[in-house]
Structure formats: structure tokens, C-alpha cells
């Protein structure tokens, strides 16, 4: 069979009824669909047509969809998974905001410039500064926008690692679900078509090269490639790619970073794979920083994925406790450094054979008072309780005297307001004086892809050769690359997703409409 002929949309239409197996086999042949997708506009017949198609339903996708709807566009959101929200709805729900009302209430002075400076420092100067400024500048207004859609925040500001000051808000649910679920409800209420089990297989372009739609596998049962049936959906104004990263695509991530083998767990959902990114690259999108893959330094090897420890360490151990080497009882890094510095530090703890020696992070009841996952972590024995430091030492085989000496040194540092050992910011540091103690074993997990496609400040995807926008193609959130440079700061993915998603939605909705025809 002639492969090119097989892959053309017209041929696909012919195949759709009878030869279902042949259609199904096309799913695996991804390059074909891009080669064949360029069609004279009047010849393409669509099964459905909307103004804006959003691919992906995380922070970026849902924000893009609602913003485009607000601008008057008809919108469809497709997601290949059986559920909406991707990584966003299973994340910690923390958003960095420069100049929030809560900061003002607590007397914390912040500015867009300070946030940009913090993110540049963590990013080792590799950041796309224009996009970075766009994100930071949009956080305060986007936070209010989310609140207006029903998002509820905890009544205090948190200090996450790598930020020079406390600026992190968190949903009351301690989960991104506290953002995603209200946005999905609003989307359904406002008539946005929400399609799960709908996988992007390729783009459809007109003869000028403008993206005018997508080939979608409807009724897709992840991860079975031969399920569902192919349809063409038209997008008069454009397609917004909010397709996330590829943290769970072990083959592709290892091409970028050979050390990120299957032995490293990931906090990501199973759908965090690379095929949408590859489709954009086939259109000529410029991939940047793909080898910048972040490990989450707050994860535990004693559970799967993000689990209970990540939350516990973020809100309790790191700001209000310390992390020690189990062999010496001593601290060995700044617990409020950025994620890369912390993950790199933890992964130096190995025995003579190179096997991990999991460090122990701990705090006391006072330090853990805001940790909603504490009880769940105790239930599944990821977090362990000890009544005094001797018990804690015995629990993990730490030399007790050394551990107690370290705690005493830490308390002195808190008194002085200065950490001479590792120069940790001490604004929210507290003395560790009384049990009970709560502790976890720690080891990083693959968490976030800083890399992705290059976009401009109108969220248009830029072409690798011309460096000009690919007409009709927009991208937002983790699918884009460069904003965070070498290391994303905590709570900045929600900020990025919401701000760039809205930016893409707004620009796409204002794009000139192409004239498309139903089948």
C-alpha cells in the first residue's frame, strides 16, 4: 500500500467505515499524519467545527478555554485521558503570586521584579526573560480571576524553596483539583465542549500552511493505540496546545537525560508523554531546553508518585524542619534552596556501591500543623511518628548523639536568625524543641519539563527556521519551553499555566477566522 496515499485525510474518510483495522494502524504511524495534513482548504471536510480547539485540560488548557470563551469564541477542549486535568489536578495546588492581598495583609513586600529575579536565579539565567516577565506580571490579576471562578485559597502565605520571600498561595484542598474542578464546572456551564478520551493524532493545515484543525481519535482508551475512531475537527481561529510535559515518557526523557532511567519514579500522571510535542515539531515548532527536566526534591521512595510526602515536606519539613544524612545525623544542604539544588544534593547520598542512602526529613507537631496529608501519610506508613529524638534516631538508624547535636545547632541558628552552615533563608524558620516528631525518607522523582516549544508573547508557536509564528498554532503551560530556564521554582507552574493559558486563549480568540466546511 502507498503510505502517503493511505495517510491522506480523504483516504482516511474512505477507510473510516469498513476497514477499521487499517485506520487504527495509522495511529502508530505518527509522522505520516503530519506529512499528509496539508490540504487545500475547500477540500477538507470537518466532522465538527469550532473557533478554538484546546488540546489538554490542565491549568493552561482550562484557562485558555475559559479566556477564549470570555472573548466570545466557541471552544472545544480535548484530552486523551479518561479524566480531565492532567498533572494539574493531582498537583499541590500552590501558586506563586507577586503582590497578593494576603502578602499585603502579612506585611510582605513583593514585586514583579523580585519574582522575576528569583526565577532568573533558579533558572541559572537560561530563562526566556520576555515570557518570564509576562508570567510574573500576570500572577496577581490571574489569581483574582481564579478566585472569581470559585477557587478558594488558604488564609496564609507560604515560603517555598528558592523564593526570596513568602509569596505562595495554596488552594484549601492542597491540590490543583481546587483550581481544575471549578474551571471545569465553569467551562461546562458556559457551553465549552469538554471531550475526554479524545487524542490528538495530527494537525490539519490549509494550503497556506495555517493550522485549521486537528485529527482526533475519539473514544480513545489510554494507552491502547488502536481504540476509538478518527474524526477531523476544524478550528476557525486556531489550536492551542496545552499538552504538558513528557515526564512519564521514559524513552523520550532518557534521550534527553540518560540518567533519568525507569528506576526513577515520577510524580506525573501516566499521560505525560511526548507525542503532542513531537506533532508540533513535525509542523516546524522550535523545541528548546528539552533536556532540562526537573526532579521534585520532596518526594519519598516509600510511596508511588506525588503521594503524601511531597505535600508534607513542602509545607512542613522544608520550611519548618531539617533534613539529615541518616549515617551522620547532620544536615547537608539548604532546605529552602531551589529544587535543582536540593534534588542534586539529596542524590549525592549514596553508598560505596552507588545505591541510594535515603536522607530523613523531619519536623515536630508544631511544624506539621498545616500539613493536611500528615494523617494519610501516617496511615500508609510513609510518614513515621517518634515521641522523642532518641526514638527518631532508632527508627531510622541515625546516630542519636549526632542528631541531637545537629538539632541544638539548628536551634542556635534560628535564635541568631542566620544559618551559617548552609545559608538558608530564615524568615519562617522555627526552633525544633519538642516532640512528637514526624519524619519521612526522601528521594527525588521526575516532576517537570522546563523544555518545550518556543513561543512569543502572543503565545504563538515559533517556527524553527523562520522564527516566525506558525499560523493558527498556539501553546501554553508546560508544553512551552524556556520560561523557567534550568530549574522551575515551586508554585510557578500554576502561575505559568494560568497566565500563559489565558494569554493564548485571548490571542487565539482574536485571530482572524478561517472559513471552514462541515462534511
Amino acid at each position: 500500500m502507498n503510505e502517503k496515499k493511505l495517510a491522506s485525510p480523504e483516504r482516511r474518510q474512505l477507510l473510516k467505515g469498513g476497514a477499521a483495522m487499517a485506520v487504527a494502524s495509522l495511529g502508530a504511524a505518527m509522522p505520516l499524519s503530519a506529512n499528509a495534513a496539508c490540504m487545500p482548504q475547500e477540500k477538507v471536510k470537518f466532522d465538527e467545527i469550532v473557533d478554538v480547539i484546546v488540546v489538554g485540560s490542565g491549568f493552561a488548557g482550562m484557562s485558555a478555554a475559559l479566556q477564549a470563551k470570555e472573548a466570545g469564541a466557541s471552544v472545544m477542549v480535548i484530552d486523551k485521558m479518561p479524566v480531565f486535568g492532567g498533572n494539574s489536578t493531582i498537583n499541590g495546588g500552590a501558586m506563586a503570586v507577586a503582590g497578593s492581598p494576603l502578602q499585603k495583609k502579612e506585611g510582605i513586600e513583593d514585586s514583579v521584579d523580585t519574582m522575576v529575579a528569583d526565577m532568573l536565579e533558579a533558572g541559572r539565567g537560561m530563562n526566556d526573560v520576555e515570557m518570564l516577565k509576562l508570567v510574573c506580571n500576570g500572577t496577581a490579576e490571574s489569581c483574582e480571576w481564579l478566585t472569581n471562578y470559585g477557587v478558594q485559597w488558604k488564609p496564609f502565605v507560604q515560603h517555598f524553596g528558592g523564593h526570596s520571600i513568602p509569596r505562595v498561595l495554596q488552594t484549601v484542598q492542597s491540590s490543583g483539583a481546587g483550581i481544575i474542578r471549578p474551571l471545569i464546572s465553569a467551562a461546562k456551564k458556559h457551553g465549552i465542549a469538554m471531550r475526554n478520551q479524545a487524542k490528538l493524532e495530527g494537525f490539519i493545515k490549509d494550503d497556506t500552511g495555517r493550522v485549521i484543525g486537528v485529527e482526533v481519535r475519539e473514544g480513545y482508551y489510554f494507552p491502547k493505540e488502536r481504540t476509538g475512531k478518527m474524526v477531523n475537527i476544524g478550528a476557525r481561529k486556531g489550536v492551542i496546545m496545552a499538552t504538558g510535559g513528557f515526564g512519564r515518557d521514559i524513552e523520550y526523557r532518557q534521550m534527553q537525560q540518560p540518567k533519568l532511567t525507569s528506576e526513577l519514579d515520577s510524580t506525573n500522571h501516566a499521560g505525560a508523554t511526548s507525542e503532542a510535542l513531537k506533532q508540533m515539531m513535525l509542523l516546524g515548532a522550535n523545541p528548546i531546553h528539552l533536556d532540562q527536566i526537573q526532579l521534585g526534591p520532596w518526594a519519598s521512595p516509600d510511596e508511588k508518585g506525588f503521594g503524601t510526602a511531597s505535600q508534607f515536606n513542602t509545607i512542613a519539613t522544608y520550611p519548618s524542619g531539617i533534613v539529615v544524612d541518616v549515617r551522620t545525623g547532620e544536615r547537608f544542604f539548604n532546605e529552602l534552596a531551589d529544587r535543582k539544588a536540593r534534588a542534586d544534593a539529596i542524590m549525592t547520598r549514596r553508598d560505596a556501591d552507588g545505591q541510594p542512602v535515603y536522607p530523613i526529613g523531619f519536623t515536630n507537631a508544631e511544624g506539621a500543623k498545616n500539613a493536611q496529608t500528615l494523617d494519610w501519610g501516617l496511615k500508609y506508613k510513609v510518614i513515621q511518628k517518634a515521641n522523642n529524638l532518641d526514638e527518631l534516631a532508632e527508627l531510622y538508624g541515625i546516630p542519636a548523639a549526632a542528631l541531637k547535636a545537629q538539632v541544638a545547632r539548628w536551634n542556635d541558628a534560628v535564635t541568631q536568625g542566620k544559618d551559617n552552615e548552609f545559608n538558608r533563608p530564615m524568615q519562617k524558620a522555627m526552633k525544633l524543641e519538642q516532640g512528637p516528631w514526624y519524619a519521612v525518607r526522601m528521594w527525588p522523582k521526575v516532576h517537570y519539563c522546563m523544555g518545550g516549544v518556543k513561543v512569543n508573547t502572543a503565545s504563538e508557536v515559533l517556527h524553527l527556521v523562520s522564527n516566525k509564528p506558525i499560523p493558527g498554532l498556539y501553546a501554553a503551560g508546560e508544553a512551552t519551553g524556556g520560561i523557567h530556564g534550568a530549574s522551575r521554582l515551586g508554585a510557578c507552574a500554576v502561575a505559568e499555566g494560568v497566565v500563559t493559558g489565558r494569554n493564548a486563549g485571548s490571542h487565539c480568540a482574536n485571530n482572524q477566522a478561517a472559513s471552514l466546511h462541515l462534511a
Partner: protein
Amino acid sequence: MLRILTTMCILMLLSIPAANAMKIKDYHKEVMTGDNGKVECSFCHGDAKRKTIPQASACETCHGTPDDVAELTQRPSDADHDIEPNPHDSLHYGTDLPCTYCHQEHKESQVYCNQCHEFQYPDMKR
């Protein structure tokens, strides 16, 4: 000619027992068995070809809407961490997850949430 017809008949006969040889849960077997004593695949699969995963709407015909099902497994309002979350109304996904991602008819069922969590649902029919 006769030989061809015989071959065709044998092939057809072979294909029917193949469908009915699929493992099926006891509690479903009774309601899915038609007057001819054979399991009616179309109860779940409709007119779709074999191996097509049924739409959740097929489950809803007998079991009610996702909201109905969620109500059956509701937690008491004062439930603490001793009681597992409602598997049919997730903090992350609401009632969106189609039935078939956990409940598998022809092989062992699994808990979608347990890709990350360690929830125990001993009453789930595997």
C-alpha cells in the same frame, strides 16, 4: 462446494464459542445470559465489533448515572482517615472517570486511583 460450505460453517461455529469462552463475572453472567443460554455480548458491546471497550453509558443502563453510583459509596460526613475516599467521587476527577478504567469484565479489575494512592477497597468485585 460442499467442502467450502462445511468449512465456513465450522469457522462460524468456532467464532461463537470463542466469544462465550471469555471470562465473565458470576454476578453478570446471570443477567447477561439470553434465552438461548448464551451470553449476550451486545448487552455491553452493542453492535460494536469484538474487543471494543464498551462506553460507560452501557453500564449506566443498569447501574444508574455516575452520581447515583457515587451516592452508593458515599463517606459519612464526619469520616476521618480510617475511611477510604469515595472511589466514585474523587477530589481530583469528580465523577468523570468512565467505569471501564477500573471495572474490567474479562480480566481482574483495578483501582485507577492506585496509580498514585494505596487505597483499600476490599468490597470491590475484582
